[in-house]
């Protein structure tokens, strides 16, 4: 990068982590292939594991985006789930439009929920979503614009720390209530389900699943490279400086509002991409995604993995969600204790998260 690339004390550990990450990526990439092996084969990977891993990859992208905002720029957003959900809704709208006349009521344009709620025509904000490129643009644009407006208002007024967190939480809460309304034209509580196809490919085939899996994996790798490029540039150092002493950075002549806004908007857009990839894989998007608890959970992934390190964010997303999937089946009555206890223990004893633990061992 530059002549001053910092040889940190724990750099060997960091190198080890990078290598580990690469191996993990390759292993992940192999999953859909191993899925094609016969069920009896010892290396066979089940459909369930592939599909759930695809979901976790999307969570990992969300965690990365949150880490960029929180871990590096110090913006603790408790509303990142909202950007994720908005990206998901944009994708969902595209998928709904693609159903076309294959809906239950055979209406050429209107999605089923509009038909039985008595809509006569498509609301204006649904126009254009039948076009893939337009929908993908909206996936990043809508979260980006929301982040721009909210961030501009907040950063300009120098709302930081806890106050900012509460405002972002109120934002996602307000959006949740709004999207629950059936009159909004987004299907209310039921949201969107029963998607048929994407890019001409039926969604319930192995090919489509593998395609989405690889798309998510590529998006994760790209996000990682992007974030890593950002955090290692001088801009990344400005963000770190803002996190640790925003006032001081201002006196150095940096307009911190612009810097934070840039990071926040970028982060929101990444979250939107994660949401867009998530929706076709889980097959549903509904206002529950806006619930404040979801956003807090995402923050917790980052905290558990280790904020301020990109690998940590990814690690956190995979480990917490893996634990949750396992526990909701293995100990349905007790999983909240385990998960809640984990958050308590991590914040108390592992302020640098799992990654801190690994690094500590490596150094």
């Amino acid at each position, binding site marked *: 990068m530059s002549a001053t690339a910092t040889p940190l004390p724990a750099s060997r550990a960091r190198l080890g982590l990078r290598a580990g990450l690469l191996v993990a990526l390759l292993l992940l990439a192999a999953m859909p292939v191993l899925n094609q092996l016969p069920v009896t084969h010892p290396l066979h990977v089940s459909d369930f594991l592939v599909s759930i891993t695809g979901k976790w990859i999307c969570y990992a992208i969300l965690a990365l985006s949150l880490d960029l905002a929180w871990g590096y720029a110090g913006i603790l957003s408790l509303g990142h789930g909202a950007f994720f959900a908005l990206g998901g809704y944009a994708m969902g709208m595209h998928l709904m439009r693609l159903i076309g006349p294959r809906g239950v009521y055979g209406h050429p344009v209107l999605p089923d929920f509009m038909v039985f709620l008595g809509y006569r025509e498509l609301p204006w904000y649904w126009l254009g979503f039948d076009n893939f490129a337009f929908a993908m643009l909206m996936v990043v644009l809508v979260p980006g614009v929301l982040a721009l407006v909210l961030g501009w208002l*907040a950063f300009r007024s120098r709302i930081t720390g806890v106050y900012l967190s509460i*405002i972002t939480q109120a934002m996602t809460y307000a959006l949740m209530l709004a999207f*629950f309304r059936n009159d909004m034209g987004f299907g209310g509580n039921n949201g969107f389900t029963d998607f048929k196809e994407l890019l001409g490919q039926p969604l319930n085939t192995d090919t489509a699943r593998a395609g989405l899996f690889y798309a998510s994996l590529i998006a994760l790798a790209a996000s990682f490279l992007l974030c890593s490029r950002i955090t290692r540039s001088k801009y990344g150092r400005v963000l770190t400086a803002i996190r640790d002493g925003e006032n001081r950075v201002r006196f150095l002549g940096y307009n911190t509002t612009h810097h934070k806004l840039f990071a926040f908007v970028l982060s929101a857009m990444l979250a939107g991409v994660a949401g867009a990839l998530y929706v076709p894989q889980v097959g549903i998007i509904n206002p529950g995604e806006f619930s404040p608890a979801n956003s807090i959970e995402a923050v917790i992934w980052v905290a558990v993995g280790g904020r301020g390190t990109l690998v940590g964010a990814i690690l956190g997303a995979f480990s917490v969600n893996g634990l949750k999937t396992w526990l909701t089946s293995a100990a349905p009555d007790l999983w909240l204790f385990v998960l809640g206890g984990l958050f308590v223990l991590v914040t108390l004893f592992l302020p640098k998260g799992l990654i801190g633990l690994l690094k500590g061992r490596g150094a």
Partner: protein
Amino acid sequence: MKHTLLAFLLLLAAALPARAQDAFVAALPGLAGNFNAQAEAVDRLGALADPRAIPVLRALADGRLLKLADNSLVIRDGTATTDVLTGAATEAAGTEVLRINNRVRVALRGALGRLQLVSPDPAERLAAAEAVFRSRSADNVPLLDAALARETVPRIRDRMAIALAASRLLASDPAAKLLGVEALGASSSPEARSVLLEARAANPDILPQIEAAVAAIDRRLAVRRAAETFFQGLSLGSVLLLAALGLAVTFGVMGVINMAHGEFVMLGAYTTFIVQEACRGIPWLLPWSLPLSVPAAFLVAAACGALMERGLIRHLYGRPLETLLMTFGVGMMIQQTVRLVFGAQNREVLSPPWMQGTLMLPFDIPVTQNRLWILAFSLVVLALTVAAIRFTRFGLEMRAVTQKRAIAASMGIRTGRVDALTFAFGSGIAGIAGVALSQIDNVSPNLGTGYIIDSFLVVVFGGVGSLAGTLVGAFGLGLVNKILEPWAGAVLAKVFVLIAAMIFIQRRPRGLFAQKGRAAEA
């Protein structure tokens, strides 16, 4: 009381011709028939003016009228049963409770109303006037005329007059009708308005008079409606205030973000439930279980708060965001514990009689008793909180520690103890809020979740560290919400309030009652 009633009944009975007494006997079997027959029988009994009908009809209304195997009817009173006709004690074996439906209930109300219009008990007469008004019929005119002439209590006279006017509207005499319209138009009750509107179709000839009367009532009702909305806003505000007050202490004064705050509220509500169950064994104590719950809930929540502060939060001072995440985890655990111990179902917390029903304020403004109590309660809790902070040694130490910890410590204040007490105090207030919320919301493990975001918003909106700000913030948000609700709907009103609060905070980041100066910037 009992004696006068008895004497009065005997007097009434003696005055009746024998024919009516036979009619009483003849009407009885209908009560055991189907709902149709029941309603008819009730109507007939109500028209008889036979005092023996009163206990029978009351028993039917309360589900205490039983049918024996031989089709004779008996009334159950506690454990004793008496025969309707003979008044003799009977065996209750092989009996079947006579069930009624709404249609019979409507008939019963009318019949009992007619029978009780001349009761010696003013409360009964008032209820009767109300009932007769609701089951209006032209036949009631002479009855009401007579009752009105005897009546001396002004409030009952007013109700009887309206009932009379409403009944006159059904009479065939046009002059009487106009009299009725005029009297109804002079009242300010929505029921009178409803009666007038209903009469429009049947009386095209006096339509202008009816319309004028309705318009007159409408003018008076508009004021009342505004007052009602205002009260509803205050009431919502008082709920927000209660929920936010504890947070104003833990977050506002100490700067601790406690996401488990809602769970402390929930623990308060469950404490109320436990106290109530404990009081069930002692009947005279049961109505007082709610006031008893207040200190209990405070102690339970405060103990949990102190435990959490000493065990967990104090290790994270100066790291508010970590505190936020940790307390979220604690909240999850508290919620699941309660769910496993008490079950996921709602728990029933009874309202004491003095918190039920509606109270009429001057100008006929109806306010529900429970909400009025909660409003008053929230202000008392606020006053006590202010007093505790301003006027007690503990409050002094608390302010000292939060402002200049090191200096306070050097003056011999045990800051750790003060921290624990302050947090316990804030949590205790949350517990008290739970007692109040048990009266209007579900007592379920999820109780607290619904209030946490609103509470934070109220505290930030009002200005962190300012109890006056919390007060104004809570009532302000409550009022705006209720004013918006009629035209925006409940959901959008809430969304608008959230957005408005967010924008407001961005304009004035320190809230309504900002703490100014260099201290605030530290």
